[in-house]
């Protein structure tokens, strides 16, 4: 397989490495960079477990994105949501409202939420549910995840919290 030197900017940090051109972003993150906070659930774009944020606003399934395509973009994973040990409001809402059980869907859900709220800071319940579609959770029945997204949007509204994502300097 042909390889190529690529630079990925993940959570504000540049990583330069050689990768086969067919390497998915998910593989690059997990296997090459050993950033295992992004999860594999299906590898075929069906579960949303691998969702990351591009340029602070666009959600992609990293399993369907080639690593080379992600060059030059700012990639945020759940590991980049915390700043100086301080949790992001989305993380706080997920923790406090019981939106996390096994937690395997959580990294993808949190990044999906970041994308939803970047696009629409005050979504209705229906918009939240539509927005989350494509991210599967088998533990919670979505009930508390929907509540957490709602709460996160309120928290981000009132507290002058930073913008989601866009982690690079």
């Amino acid at each position: 397989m042909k390889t190529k030197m690529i630079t990925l900017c993940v959570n504000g940090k540049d990583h330069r490495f050689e990768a086969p051109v067919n390497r998915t972003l998910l593989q690059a993150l997990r296997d090459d960079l050993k950033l295992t906070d992004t999860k594999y659930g299906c590898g075929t774009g069906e579960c949303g477990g691998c969702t990351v944020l591009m340029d602070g606003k666009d959600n992609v399934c990293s399993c369907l994105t080639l690593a080379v395509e992600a060059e030059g973009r700012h990639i945020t994973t759940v590991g980049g949501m915390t700043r100086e040990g301080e949790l992001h409001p989305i993380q706080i809402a997920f923790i406090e409202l019981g939106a996390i059980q096994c937690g395997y869907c959580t990294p993808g859900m949190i990044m999906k939420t970041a994308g939803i709220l970047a696009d629409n800071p005050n979504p209705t319940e229906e918009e939240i549910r539509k927005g989350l579609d494509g991210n599967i959770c088998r533990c919670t029945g979505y009930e508390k995840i929907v509540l957490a997204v709602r709460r996160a949007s309120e928290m981000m509204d009132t507290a002058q919290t930073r913008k989601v994502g866009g982690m690079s300097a």
Partner: protein
Amino acid sequence: MNTQTYVGKSVPKLDAREKATGQAIYAADLNLPGMLYGKIVRCLDFAHAKVLKLDLSEAAKVPGVVKVLGPKDVTQKRYNSGVLDLMVPEALGEMLGDIEDQHIFTDYVRHQGDAICGIIAESEEIAEIAAQKVKVFYEALPAYLTAEESSHPDAIQFDARKPGNRAFQLPEQMFPGNGYGWGDVDAEMAKADMVFEETFTLPKVKQCQMETHSYVALLDQSGRLNCWTSTQMPKCVQPKLARLFDLPISRVNLVQTTIGGGFGVRLGMVCEPETCAMAMAVPGRPVKVQLTREEDWLASESRHPGKYWMKLGVKMDGTPVALDARFMASTGAYFTHASGVPFTTGSWLTGMYKYGAVRYKGEAYFTNQAPSGAFRGYGNPQTNFALEQIVDRACNALNIDPVEWRKKWHKGAGDDGWCIGVPYSSCALDECLDRGAKAIGWKEKRAKYANQTGVMRRGVGVSVMNHTSGAMPMLLEHTTCTIKMNEDGSAVLTLSCSDLGQGSHTVLKQIAADTLGMPMDEIHILNNMDAAGFDIGSHASRTTYVGGGAVIKACEDVKRQLIERASIRLGVDKEDLELKDRQVIARSDASKKLSVKEICHSGVYNFTNPANGETNGVPGQIQGYASHFPAHNSPPFGACFAEVEVDTETGEVKVLELVIAHDIGRAINPMAVQGQLEGGAHQALGMVLTEETRYNDMGLCRNNSFTDYKMLGPVDMPRITTILVEQPDPIAPMGLKSVGEAGPVNPVGATANAISHALGIMFTEAPITPERVLKALNP
């Protein structure tokens, strides 16, 4: 008694922060130095075949391949990946007919996805390339996909020990006539005014835990086999691996990684045997195996599908004079849970109502599908679909309100329980029914939706259930727990209970903190399988109930020691001392007190004064211990109400609302209890509306992916109202009862009944898909 400060509160999960930041470590996240990658090569083209020839030579030549292993290169021992053998006495296991019939790698394929050989390589890609080069020559055999087909006299016999491919039936020695229950069913049935008879078809439903099965194994330099796995039964998998590989248990280091959902699919071994066999072949090098989603689907267990025949006889006043039932389950390719599920399916049935007489027969047959096994609810959703619908049919025919009928005829406290001979200790089902009915507006909606004719038709339905908290006395119930008091008065709680995400570690810590009267954040939970004693594992909705009982006992042991030492030091009678605000205080004289910290500290830092030989306290580090066998199974009950809207043009069913009232006894963590009911509802609605693993005629799976296997998404899920009914159980620790396994049960029957309320048609086949609805509407 200390005032309780954590029990009853919705404390966030202990590990939620790690999970929310991506720092929780699941097995596939492990990267160990020198790690190799294992690929299990599976038969994908046949569901039933003999391997005539296996040629591994080309695969072995691929650069970067370290080893290839065929069936002959690994232990020849057979095993049963289930764990029933560890839960019942040997004689009972024999009577139930459990057998070991699985091989690590096989030359006789019994289902698509059966493991043929293993490849160990320097990278995952290389292992995959090599897997493509494995040449297998098969002789295809006819595939049997249902119990009816495999039990045919001409069918090929899967296992000589199981003639007729009947893996299990209720043993004659225990249950004459191969059925259990009470009374003379035939005689009582003859007295019925009306008889309702139906055969229900249950689907093969997949757990769909989001983390696919993944492992790392390593045979280290000391000769210890290490296995990192997200099993939900660590203390069962450890001895099973020890037995399989002829090692003492002390040489199997089982490390439980964060569990990415279980729901029963990790009840026992899954691919630990294959992974460990590969690691044994490359001593000193860790081997990682991560299943793809498609592979996980083909290789791991599901809920038992099957046919459930039922006949209910009633008097005109509704009296259920007799119930006769038979569940013919397809157990799939291997034995695993062939006895457990068909057995307990009837327990929920006989445990529900006060029938005049009842007879239940449960059987399991081999088929050429992935094995059926444990799935949250363990037979209860199947019973719920059939029983609750046939009850409603009788109520409709007799013009009796289904809620009233259930209130009148359900079993309650003092009645014979799901395990015949063990009476129920408590039952809050009436309150569940009353509060649930009120919340959904039962009476009004029931009347309003009767006899609709439009395109969109609504209906409301009800369902009730019983379950258990732990499987005592049917199965072994045992949890050990140690609490070590540090010298500063903080504590380490060591146990091997699994937390699958339901939050059991959180609630166990809540219980410990309240029992010891100390803050939760000064207690650490250690879940290390070398350090921790036995726990049977997470199954039968037992962890809070049995684990909680163990934690309380161990804490009481600590308290006893604190008080004994304080008594010596203060010169006060033990009876006069109590633990309060982290001090041991005399009731009669509050000035006489010693802090817990001081007692613990002086026990560790115990110095002798050389001048007089006196010490500064009672020597010895305090450690509380419990090896706990619960006295009962304090069963929870529940009532569920569903409101649906059916589009008679498209056949689509939309669940508008679910009200789930659960008899929790006492909610240690209400938010976690709600989470169990809400998540369970997702699985229940899937089973009744959309989910089924389907196979083609050759037994090849047609929908082993999330696109083709339809689970409900966030948009499809209804509004869910949970009602936690708290009537403490008199026997249970803190009065608590279970909830986890109850989750996926009740919405099944309630939704099916709501659909038949809307349409006037009872659906005997699950899932009730739009096609089935349309077919029923336009026969």
